[in-house]
């Protein structure tokens, strides 16, 4: 069921697979949400970059290899299949970098991208604020124009990687009062005016980072407090006041293609298949064993359907299309697939899943899968986007 790839793509696949087979650490690296684990993941990124695999789709001058999107997906498939470490640089690689390609200056790209590829600089994202989760129009953190730059003040929260990262990017209010997009629609354009997209140093004077303890006891997220933090004009992306429009291109990437490539689900469906093969047909739920087999097959189908959908979007992108509301489809699709994979696995494991500890194994995956839709705007909002933009339903 491989997609149609040309021989050069297949050669690339073989090369990636060989390199990963040799280098993926075993045993796995310690958690990226600890100081030691973060450092280990940074080393891993440096190794990936050395092999030219950190950002295959980037131009060579920034550390990439000008790969097509299809080939990038091949890399992702292989990466998940090999069980490669979490990409500690993912906020930069998959969110900030596409924004710089679309809206940044040459100077910004030259300065920011190469150290991002080698993980010399690791980026945190700073979108959410208390009271402004999926609703960016409600942002209150301010950017006040001063001579040669801006002073940032306010609070960001749910900032992933911020506990150990070097720099961060996000939206700040540079004009007007914080608003609300109003009603049930997240996309009232006037309410999003006056936001500016900025990059800042997490170690600059005036920045305080406070980790948020997650259930696994590790600081997967942090709060960032900013008190008159100076940022030069060179670190504004796009036009001041137009940050919402700039951010939307990033959001499309986050939702659709980047963070959850199909490879992740193909690998998860394989993992589920393996679990089924080893599971106990005589267990307490044996009456339902056939039904679980059907659900495993369904997961297998769904992972492939998502892969095909993604390749379709990619084909469109390569033909010059742009990523719009279609990424909302992917978002709804993958988050539900994620949840259903975990549910099936838990049904297979039965009470044995109880012995894996509170936040690990499949139960932990399930918990985080359920909470997952927060990463990129809740599914509720994605569904509104689909209803309004793709089905033309009234707001």
């Amino acid at each position, binding site marked *: *069921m491989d997609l*149609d790839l040309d021989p050069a793509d297949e050669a690339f696949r073989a090369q990636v697979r060989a390199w990963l087979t040799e280098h993926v650490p075993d045993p796995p690296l310690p958690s990226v949400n600890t100081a030691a684990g973060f450092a280990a993941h940074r080393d891993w990124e440096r190794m990936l970059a050395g092999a030219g695999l950190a950002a295959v789709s980037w131009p060579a001058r920034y550390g990439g290899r000008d790969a097509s999107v299809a080939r990038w997906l091949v890399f992702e498939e292989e990466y998940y299949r090999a069980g490669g470490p979490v990409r500690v640089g993912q906020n930069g690689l998959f969110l900030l970098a596409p924004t710089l390609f679309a809206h940044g200056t040459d100077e910004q790209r030259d300065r920011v991208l190469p150290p991002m590829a080698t993980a010399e600089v690791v980026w945190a994202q700073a979108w959410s604020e208390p009271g402004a989760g999926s609703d960016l129009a409600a942002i209150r953190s301010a950017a006040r124009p001063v001579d040669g730059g801006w002073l940032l003040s306010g609070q960001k929260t749910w900032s992933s990687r911020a506990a150990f990262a070097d720099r961060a990017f996000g939206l700040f209010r540079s004009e007007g009062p914080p608003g609300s997009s109003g009603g*049930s629609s997240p996309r009232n354009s006037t309410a999003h005016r006056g936001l500016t997209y900025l990059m800042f140093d997490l170690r600059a004077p005036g920045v305080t980072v406070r980790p948020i303890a997650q259930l696994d006891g590790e600081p997967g997220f942090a709060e960032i407090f900013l008190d008159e933090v100076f940022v030069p004009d060179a670190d504004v992306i796009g036009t001041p006041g137009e940050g919402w429009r700039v951010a939307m291109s990033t959001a499309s990437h986050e939702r659709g293609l980047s963070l959850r490539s199909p490879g992740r689900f193909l690998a998860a469906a394989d993992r589920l*298949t393996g679990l*089924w*093969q*080893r*599971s*106990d*047909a*005589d267990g307490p739920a044996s009456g339902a*064993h*056939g039904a679980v*087999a*059907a659900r*495993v*097959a*369904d997961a*297998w*189908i*769904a992972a*492939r*359907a*998502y892969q*095909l*959908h993604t390749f*379709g*979007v990619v*084909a*469109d992108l390569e*033909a010059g299309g742009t990523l719009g509301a279609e990424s909302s*489809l992917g978002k*709804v*699709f993958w988050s539900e697939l994620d949840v259903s994979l975990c549910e099936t696995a838990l049904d297979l494991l039965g009470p*044995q899943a109880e*012995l894996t500890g509170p936040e690990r194994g499949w139960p932990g995956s399930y918990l985080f899968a359920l909470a997952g839709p927060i990463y990129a705007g809740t599914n*509720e909002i*994605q*569904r*509104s*986007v*689909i*209803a*309004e933009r*793709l*089905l*033309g*339903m*009234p*707001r």
Partner: protein
Amino acid sequence: MDALAGLTPEQQALRESVADLLRRHPARLDEEAGEAGAAEANAELWRRLAGIGAAGLAIPERYGGAGAGPVETSIVAEELGRTLAPVPLLGSAVLAAQAILGSGDEQACQRLLPGIASGSRIAALAWTGARGGWDPAAAACHAERRVQRDGEADGIWTLTGTAHYVLDGDVADVLIVAASLPEGGIGLFEAATDRPGVERQAAAGVDQTRRLATIRLATGVGPPLTGAAPTGPAPTGAAPTAATTATTVGTQALTRARDLACVALSAEQVGAAARALELTVAYTKQRIQFGRPIASFQAVQHRLAELHALVQSARALAYRAAQVAASGASQAEVGLLAAAAKSCCSDVLAKVAAEAIQLHGAIGVTWEYDAHRYFKRAHGSGQLFGPPAAHLARIADAVIGPAEPLALADDLAF
């Protein structure tokens, strides 16, 4: 959308010409209700479709077809699914034609396929029994060699049994019968439709836009279709007689015909689902409750958005199955994808159709609106060639393999 599915400009043009024809000559959906002129109008529609090549898409040029393939067939099936047009694409141009082709019987191909490809003849395949199952290694009818008084076989075979769910079986000019052979295996026989001992009766199915028939047979026919199967090696061992070759050929031909029919049916289901969703979206925009269109209610929007996401993924899978079938992949691989597509598209159409009825409310159960027709198509097509659970079981067997006990007890002991 077509570009997303990787269709070529020629394929997109085919879709447009079929859609255009269906717009200009809409199908009559009241045929089964016995409305005057409906059956004739739909027969005329099929001739028009055949006129632009739809009936012979997947039939090689040497037999009068267009020599195209499963992707083109799926494009036409999707458009027919959108309109629920009751024409014999699936039963005649796909299922029966592929069974004949799969038999490898050169003579039968030359005799039967050109008429099917031109739309001048309609073919039907009588296969499964009342329980359904569509197992390529089984058939509802049985074949025996007729024996003369002197104890010698005279080359005539006797078919007995009752086949159900025969697509277009009551109107077909060409009847192919799958029957179990005395030496085991399955043979394919051509039966005359006008002989005594061939009773055909239209089945009053749930889906009135799909012609199904029950066919009871107790009739004499010629020997089974036979020839080198187009794929797979010939049986080894002792030199095959006509009948023993036919045992292998029959099951191979049925497997191939079923898989390609599942692929085409998946596309048809995607078309029906997409259209039912469009009609429902349109209805919710027009229906006013509490002073505003119900399309503006968030709960309604989210249900329809979810369905839209499902239809898109079903469509990706349906076309992938067609592309793999077109690529000359192994029968096993085609079968796997056909099962995946059929299962997924059946589920998605069922969900869309059920939601359509719920959102239409009372008018969904009147003749004025088509919502009920899509619901019935969902039900009927979901069962045709086996329900989703049967296809999932095939996938589980093929991909997942049997379960082995998990020796966790020891691991868990401390």
